[in-house]
């Protein structure tokens, strides 16, 4: 079974001169940590937005765990997915616990069970002592970790993370990557986007590199490096396929 299967996906935003996605197709196997990589403007965020139902595709199909995404199944798919957006999608004036309890309530959790779940995750991510501190007063790393907890409260089978380690210190990054591995070991699928390609090379079992709304190449990072003798690492492979031109 695949965790994600995307076929001939097209999307042009109204008023845009060029399409964001132009026949994008790829699929990821279930139960793996995979990377969706690409330069700025490649179409990663649009793809993720379509996967989680925030944006409608112009045409093409999306399947999550073999469930075709359409209007009638969007809610069912939302239950399977957890999204960690690049932004810190939390209320800065609320404490970590208040934020997580609110999002937990929205997922339908309540009472003691929710409280225990929130406290357990806060401890797991090293935020036990900061549970009652306003998120706006957190460091970058603490915010990122809280941002991840908010996406896994309902224990999704598929966790999609958009630049989860951007702007965090080495310790926080290590903790986040360790968590992703452990989450994956429980049988869950993880899709990860990042510009930190050494990190992607380290944790991803499969990567799809996309550019200009199309799939450029897909495969295991080590295999991709081997296929290109001139490339020493995933970053070289990435530059080989996407070029050296600076993107806006």
């Amino acid at each position, binding site marked *: 079974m695949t965790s994600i299967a995307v076929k001939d996906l097209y999307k042009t935003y109204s008023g845009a001169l060029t399409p964001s996605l132009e026949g994008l197709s790829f699929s990821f196997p279930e139960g793996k940590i995979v990377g969706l990589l690409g330069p700025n403007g490649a179409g990663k965020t649009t793809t993720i937005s379509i996967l989680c139902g925030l944006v409608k595709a112009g045409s093409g199909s999306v399947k999550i765990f073999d469930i075709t995404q359409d209007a009638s199944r969007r809610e069912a798919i939302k239950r399977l997915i957890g999204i960690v957006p690049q*932004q810190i999608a*939390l209320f800065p004036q609320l404490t970590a616990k208040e934020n997580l309890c609110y999002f937990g*309530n929205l997922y*339908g959790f309540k009472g003691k069970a929710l409280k225990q779940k929130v406290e357990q995750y806060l401890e797991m991510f090293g935020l036990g002592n900061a549970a009652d501190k306003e998120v706006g007063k957190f460091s970058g790393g603490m915010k990122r970790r809280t941002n991840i907890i908010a996406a896994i409260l309902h224990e999704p089978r598929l966790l999609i993370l958009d630049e989860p380690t951007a702007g965090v210190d080495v310790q926080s990054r290590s903790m986040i990557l360790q968590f992703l591995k452990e989450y994956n070991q429980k049988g869950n699928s993880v899709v990860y986007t990042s510009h930190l390609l050494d990190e992607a090379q380290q944790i991803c079992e499969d990567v799809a590199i996309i550019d200009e709304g199309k799939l450029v190449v897909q495969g295991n990072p080590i295999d991709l490096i081997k296929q290109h003798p001139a490339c020493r690492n995933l970053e070289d492979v990435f530059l080989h396929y996407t070029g050296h031109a600076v993107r806006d």
Partner: protein
Amino acid sequence: MLRLIATIRKEWLLLLRDKAGLALLFAMPVILITVMALIQDAPFKDYQEVKFDILTVDNDHGRLGRYIREGLGNSGQFNVIDSLQGKPVSETTAKSLIGEGHYKISIVIPKGSTAEIVSNANKIVNDISKRMGIPAQLPVKAIASDSLAVQLYFDPAAKKAFKSAIRQALDNFLTQVQTDLLLERIQMQLRSKDSTATDTFPAIKLKAVGLQETNLGKHQEIDVISNSVQHNVPAWSIFAMFFIVIPIAGNMIREREDGSLVRMKLIPGNYLSILAGKLLFFVGICVIQFYLMIAVGIFGMPLLDLPALQLGVNHWAGFITALSISITATAYGILIGTIFKTPNQALNFGAISIVILSAIGGIWIPLEIMPEKIQSIGRLSPLSWGLDAINDVYLRNGDIRFILQDITRLLACGLVMLGIAGWVEQRRIS
């Protein structure tokens, strides 16, 4: 239901931690209604209610001068000032003080006025007596003066309406003095002709038909008088309630900018339940705001020597009106928060649009005294519907039937705005 309650609780926590937002929602409106009620108190009072200092120069030193001074003093409308620093006020001093704006009115009673009025009354009585075959007995001046007039001086900055009202009040008073003298002369003539000195004549009743005012409200025993508090407290409360668009729009745009909106939409379940929680919370805040300001009107205004706000008799109708205004104001905030992309755009548009809607909607000055074209436009303002409904309940003691049209308009307007907001949001996804 859990999503709705959780959202209300979340909004409550957010508001509690936003001290400036709390001040904007509760403290500022209280200050606003207090200031507006105080500064608009004088213009709202009838001229009969206001006491004016009137510089009185009595060059007559006769009965008319005394009558006028006593009459002006007893009328309750004027403080008669006929001496300054122990010296009688002269016409020159009066003109100078008025010209410099120290006083607003001066009255100068010319020399010989009493003699002129008495002579005129005597002449009328003698003429009547003559026609009735009674010999003329009362003394009359040989030559009547045509140019004798009580002179009025006004502060050049005084408004036309003010001058007109004062002139009319003084003119009525002068007429009264002259009528009194005439009646007195008639009585004197009749007494001298037909009776002995011990006869008592019944007082001549001049007013055969008087005026009587009856309250047309449903509850006639409750006569609510429109005054500064009665207009300003509800009017500026409605204005302040509409200012809730600022925190709502700011809150919505912030949620969009910081990504929490995206997270809420990613969670399974209808986003409308979250939006409904937000709507209910802010509607509740608006209603609390309204009743807080009403409480200030009832208990705070008398502490400032202003009349207490009267709520009429139909408190449920008042509550339904407050609720309808709150729903419309909150819906407007949601619409602005949905349409605009940045807080600056939303806050500027929101604030300016409310000021315009309030100005044309009769919040600042009653709609009835505006030009006809502006009145027609003003009647399209939701703030004017709210104020009309409040006035129906508080001033006319109206019940729910009185306000049905206005609250239907308010709720329909709120629904349309929510519909547009939903459509814009839907377009964003597609």
